[in-house]
């Protein structure tokens, strides 16, 4: 079933690329603005045997994963803490919502000043995007918990730490993973925007340079690589989720 579906997907992609290529050959779209698949793949073919391109991929992947990890860990811990101390959440809620709603890429210039022009500022920007999503999701996950589940374990004489570990954490994992799935895209946005604004390396920096030179084939080529990275990261996250939540009904699908 899945094999057939995948064949159709590949066919659909091939048809779209053929139309694009054909339109470019017939002059229906300007090659200067839209490039064409054959040129994009020719550029990719060259870039993939080039150490420089791989080094940039590695930089972007490293920044993204580090930003994801730092943002997620801090976000989950903060969400947990705020769910325990409701008073603190009520005090901080307007500030959290203000920061959450703020387009955090606007913070990029500040992060450049604070964390330098290197990888630090990109990691910080990615983490700042991830942090609030995980904070709010973890907080909601713990708020939505079945109170009787907590009460039942309380009557066993369990400590708060035991309840946090055995009840609150597992129960909020659904929300945490929902946040993590969104966060892959957010971390990539943070990293790429950070690289585009300033820096030396990374796929964002390459896109910025290629754009300045009107090298649309290269821009498309890098976008394809980014799309593949995003898909790989999402699949990896799905596998992690399935493993962590292996207690769930096997019939359940997402």
């Amino acid at each position, binding site marked *: 079933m899945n094999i057939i579906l995948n064949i159709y997907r590949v066919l659909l992609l091939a048809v779209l690329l053929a139309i694009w290529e054909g339109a470019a050959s017939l002059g229906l779209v300007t090659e200067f603005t839209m490039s064409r698949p054959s040129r994009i793949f020719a550029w990719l073919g060259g870039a993939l045997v080039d150490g420089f391109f791989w080094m940039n991929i590695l930089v972007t992947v490293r920044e993204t994963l580090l930003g994801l990890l730092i943002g997620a860990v801090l976000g989950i811990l903060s969400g947990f803490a705020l769910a325990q101390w409701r008073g603190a959440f009520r005090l901080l809620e307007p500030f959290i919502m203000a920061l959450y709603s703020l387009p955090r890429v606007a913070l990029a210039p500040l992060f450049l000043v604070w964390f330098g022009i290197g990888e630090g500022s990109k990691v910080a920007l990615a983490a700042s995007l991830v942090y609030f999503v995980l904070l709010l999701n973890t907080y909601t996950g713990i708020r939505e918990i079945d109170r*009787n589940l907590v009460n039942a374990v309380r*009557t066993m004489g369990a400590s708060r730490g035991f309840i946090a570990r055995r009840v609150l954490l597992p129960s909020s994992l659904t929300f945490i993973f929902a946040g993590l799935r969104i966060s892959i895209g957010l971390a990539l946005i943070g990293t790429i925007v950070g690289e585009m604004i300033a820096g030396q390396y990374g796929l964002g920096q390459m896109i910025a340079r290629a754009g300045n030179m009107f090298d649309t084939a290269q821009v498309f080529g890098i976008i394809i690589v980014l799309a593949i990275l995003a898909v790989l990261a999402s699949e990896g996250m799905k596998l992690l989720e399935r493993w962590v939540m292996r207690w769930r009904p096997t019939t359940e699908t997402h």
Partner: protein
Amino acid sequence: MTAEAKLRVEGLSLDFGNDERGLRVLANVNLDLKRGEFCTIVGPSGCGKSTLLNLIAGLMPPTGGQCYLDGKPIKPGMPSIGYMFQSDTLLPWNTALENVRLPLEAVGRKDEGLCLDLLKRVGVGDFADAYPWQLSGGMKKRVQLARLLAQQPEVLLMDEPFGALDAQTKLLIQEELLRLWEKSGLTVLFVTHDLSEAISLSDRVLLFSARPGHVKEEYEVPLARPRNIEAIVQDPQYNDLFVRLWRSLKEEIQLS
């Protein structure tokens, strides 16, 4: 009488909100449960029966009054008081056996085969490695019963534990509970709205009034132990008690 009470509830009351529009949920509830007694509370919905159990277990503080276990004030989270909730409170991410082990781990006790033994005793030994979603409603209740016993409590608080089960499953698990309790010497405070359940299980039935809840009447159940449910329902004393309870309960329901 007072000295030998296993569980003692003294002048317990609870108000929600403290102005004149506030709601009085419980008004001066007094109970004494003897060691090894099976006592049931029946009453109209919303009369505060479940709230009473929550107060005894220390899950919320009362407005007034105090509860005692063996003459000592009850503190929240005492493992010697076991609580079985109306809803399913098995942890979905743990297997049946892990769930039964939970009360041991909560207080740092080691499981030396006790938990699997308990699962076998309640008839679900073959499902030790199953997750709750793989179990039927009746099986889940059995696992919860095993978990309750694993806690090694002295007093059981049971809040309509079998309310959501179908009639046949309910009868089976009631027999199971009787069988386990008769050998255990446990003191049980059981809340239900099912009069036949109240009569067939308990030594004493307390009838709660409409809100604000308090003990309105008290009935001794004159049926011999050990009991078996088929025999009980044919007993004329059972029918007589059922009718008396129902008449009195009906008045309270019409008031509420």
